[in-house]
């Protein structure tokens, strides 16, 4: 049995240069735990939405059935899932060491993600133009905050993709780039997971 020093004041939980660690595993698990806490943020927003989703909280303004269209939401669902699939296929290209295939998959995911966000902002802008902005009622505040929080996550993911499109040709598939690409895959997939919940709860049950 190998000798193990007793834990003490000088014990280090993690050492970047230690051969026994897998940097990629440590980074992806850490990012996964961040995502679970991010999911709790969305859980709080869903709880607020559930509470405010009554005609009384609409204060005379529109309720869910008057502002959401399940068919339009379905197209958005297909777009975001296609974007996630494209990014996932990019990581398959990465597995094969194919830089151009990886970058192509990321670019397609980026374009589809931009289309998804554009759809969402168009809906919100139309509502606001009709006088139904987020300050119109408690219900609309919850609706706007839920949709905008998701959109902000998407925009951050898109910016991250742009950074990776620079880092892949510059550094190649080194340990850090691979860990970042894997974390971004989880993050991008997480947006589709949240959207499925938004679509089911807001666009379908509310319709």
């Amino acid at each position, binding site marked *: 049995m190998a000798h193990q020093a007793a834990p003490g004041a000088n014990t280090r939980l993690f050492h970047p240069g230690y051969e026994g660690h897998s940097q990629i595993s440590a980074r992806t698990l850490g990012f996964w735990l961040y995502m679970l806490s991010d999911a709790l943020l969305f859980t709080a927003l*869903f*709880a607020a939405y559930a509470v405010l989703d*009554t005609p*009384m909280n609409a204060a005379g303004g529109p309720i869910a059935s008057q502002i959401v269209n399940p068919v339009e939401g379905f197209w958005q669902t297909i777009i975001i899932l296609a974007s996630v699939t494209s990014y996932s296929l990019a990581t398959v290209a990465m597995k094969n060491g194919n830089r151009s295939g990886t970058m192509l998959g990321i670019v397609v995911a980026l374009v589809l993600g931009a289309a998804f966000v554009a759809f969402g902002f168009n809906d919100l802008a139309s509502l606001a133009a009709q006088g139904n902005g987020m300050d119109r009622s408690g219900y609309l505040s919850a609706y706007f905050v839920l949709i905008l929080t998701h959109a902000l996550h998407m925009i951050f993911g898109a910016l991250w993709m742009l950074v990776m499109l620079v880092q892949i040709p510059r550094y190649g598939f080194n340990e850090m780039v691979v860990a970042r690409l894997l974390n971004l895959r989880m993050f991008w997939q997480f947006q589709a997971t949240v959207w499925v919940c938004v679509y089911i709860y807001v666009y379908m049950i509310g319709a």
Partner: protein
Amino acid sequence: MAGSHSDPLAHPEVRMGGALRYIAGFISTVALMGAALIVTMRHDMAYQSYVELVGGLAFLALLSQAVLYYGLDISKAQIWKSVSLILTVPLFIITVGLTVWMFQSLDHRTMLITTTFQQPTLLQ
């Protein structure tokens, strides 16, 4: 957790990716959401039954994503992600469930007007 790898592309989390799995994830999630959309557009179910059916389809879609996209399983490379998710899911349910339950109680005890409601929601 997996051990150290000199080639990052040999890491288990890189090797687990597969085109067929991701395409299966896309098809299954779209199919489940399509089924939920059809049920929604038909408008021929009682509200409670409708919520249970659509909720069940959503659960299957999320399960499909967890297995096919995230690749969660009980392998050495994924076990701690799976465990942490299983431990966190009750927090999601408690957060939403308790909030809705508390405000439902509050709503029933303090609000007088209920006849103008046009459609049921989780609070009612």
